[in-house]
């Protein structure tokens, strides 16, 4: 028994060593940093230990703006993208001709580079000296006023941010949901048909419960992914997100570490742990809700 245990540990050693050095140690380090007040990375000195870093971050208007942006993004994009993905998947599942073509088209954003997509969005939405952008041309054509989506009012920028995020995360959801729908056994539908079940009832009482584990998986990963949003915002609004007022929590962490005002690992660590606490809470709430509504 003991010998085989030793052997097992030996086999696990490489993985444990790597995880320990590159994951566990930094995690602990972040935790420690977040409580070290006035940490100086050059001299490796601290003034003291306490809650000051958290207090600073929570009072920083940039951080509060980032939290607000992130929450709006999460609350809008997760339900909207999952809902649209479900609609599109059901549609894809019920058509025969050109299904492969549509599947490919819907999957394209997933394999396209984020920055390239950001560029396309600039062309569509950005107002420059020469053109108002394609979308504004359309708005003008319908008699509306031009809106600057990239450098204009907050709601317009938020709209673009949500629109972009939904568009980027949907392909993966469609992929997962179409395969989940296809894996539902045909005989359940036949059984329901023989019993005279209406199409709506088949969808709500049979299809949805059957694919509920996948929907739940998408919602959880969707929440986590949206809370971690950063690169998409850079693609849209450039690196100075604070100036654009479109920073996210992860963006704030990055700025604190490396940005122009960077060099504050303690504040960055505190912000990262706050983000962790938020994500953990929401995931736990999700799990509790799912116990009742998800069938495995």
């Amino acid at each position, binding site marked *: 028994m003991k010998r085989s245990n030793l052997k097992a540990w030996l086999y696990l050693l490489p993985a444990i060593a790597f995880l320990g050095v590159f994951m566990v140690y930094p995690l602990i380090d972040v935790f420690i940093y977040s409580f070290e007040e006035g940490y100086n990375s050059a001299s490796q000195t601290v003034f003291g230990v306490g809650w000051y870093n958290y207090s600073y971050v929570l009072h920083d208007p940039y951080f509060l703006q980032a939290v607000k942006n992130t929450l709006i993004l999460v609350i809008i994009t997760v339900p909207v993208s999952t809902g649209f993905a479900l609609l599109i998947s059901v549609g894809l599942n019920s058509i025969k001709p050109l299904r492969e073509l549509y599947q490919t088209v819907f999957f394209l954003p997933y394999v396209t580079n984020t920055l390239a997509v950001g560029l396309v969005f600039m062309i569509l939405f950005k107002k420059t000296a020469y053109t108002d952008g394609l979308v504004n041309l359309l708005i003008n054509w319908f008699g509306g006023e031009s809106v600057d989506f990239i450098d204009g009012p907050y709601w317009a920028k938020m709209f673009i941010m949500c629109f972009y995020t939904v568009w980027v995360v949907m392909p993966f959801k469609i992929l997962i949901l179409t395969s989940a729908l296809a894996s539902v*056994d045909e*005989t*359940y539908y*036949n*059984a*329901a*048909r*023989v*019993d*005279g*079940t*209406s199409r709506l*009832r088949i969808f709500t*009482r*049979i299809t949805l*419960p*059957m694919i*509920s584990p996948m929907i739940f998986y998408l919602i959880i990963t969707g929440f986590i992914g949206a809370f971690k949003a950063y690169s998409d915002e850079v693609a849209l609004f450039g690196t100075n997100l604070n100036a654009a007022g479109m920073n996210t929590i992860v963006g704030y962490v990055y700025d604190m570490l490396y940005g122009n005002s960077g060099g504050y690992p303690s504040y960055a660590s505190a912000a990262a742990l706050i983000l962790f606490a938020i994500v953990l809470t929401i995931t736990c709430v999700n799990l509790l809700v799912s116990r009742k509504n998800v*069938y495995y």
Partner: protein
Amino acid sequence: MKVRLQNLTKRYPNRNKKSHEDVVAVNDFTFEIPDGKLIGLLGPSGCGKSTTLNLICGLEKPTAGRIFFGEDDVTDLPPENRGVGLVFQNYALYPHLTVRQNILFPLQNLKGEARPSKAQMQEKVLEAAKLVQIDQLLDRKPSELSGGQQQRVAIARALVKMPRVLLLDEPLSNLDARLRLQTREEIRRIQRETGITTVFVTHDQEEAMSISDMIVVMEAGVVQQIGKPQDVYDSPVNLFVAKFLGTPAINVFQGRIRGGGLFLGEDRVMAMPGQEDREVWVGIRPEGFVLQKDGPLRCSLVGVEVMGRDTSVVASHPAFTGAAIRAIVSAENRVDAAAETVRFSIKPRKLFLFDVQSGERIDFRTEGET
């Protein structure tokens, strides 16, 4: 409710694009199922029996022909308006619903006046559950039930809305041997108690013969024979039906009629008065062999299997077409397993002649019969 199938035909477009010929799943099926009877649709896989069932329940539309329930033409009705209950091979119980919710499901689909009140629904569910003896299990999920119990839930779900016709698709194939015996008795009992006209599909001839009022033997989309199980067994219309019914299977020999006698190889096994000389297939049921010291059929003995009540004699003969002849004789006959040859006489009623080309049965009279 009697069910009438009239020239029912179902063709599918050929999957093989080079061939433009359609695949005929069911060909010109005409049959009237009497009210309240249990009918077994029997045939090898791919013979069109499941397609026939799907046509009756409406999941598939026939290419030609009509289907009547009583006097109503239901051919163009969708399944939900036909009033059929269908039990699927894999039961298709909704895994996320409890047994009670599963049985309740068809009732909740009803609309308008047909929809019973909540209390009535619960009452009907309980009634159906009691009929199949699962009223103790109503609050379990299907995954917590054994195969036999799931089967009963599926039947209860099909019965709860009091269908005009009950259809069962290979209802026993997912059960183990012992449960199968028990469940087929159950199905018989439930059918008798409710008096609902029932059609069930199976590839297991024993299953079909044991509980059906009538069996329909199909091959390649064509109905071969319809009749009471014993009648079909005793007088098969052709070689296919003869081979398909009975375990162990019928023994088929190459035979010849010559000068008023039936020859298997060199052995003149039986007199055939009034038959012209010709080649024939000869089928002999395993129970048609009688051990006799000077019997006309001389076989080399391969082995003897004692099965308590009966003894199975395994033998070979030059004119035999299969691997080994199986003869079932009463255990009172002690067979010397060391002997090289064994001789049989044949019971005339257990011997059938079939045309070499068409496989149709040839009627014959033997000596002593009128």
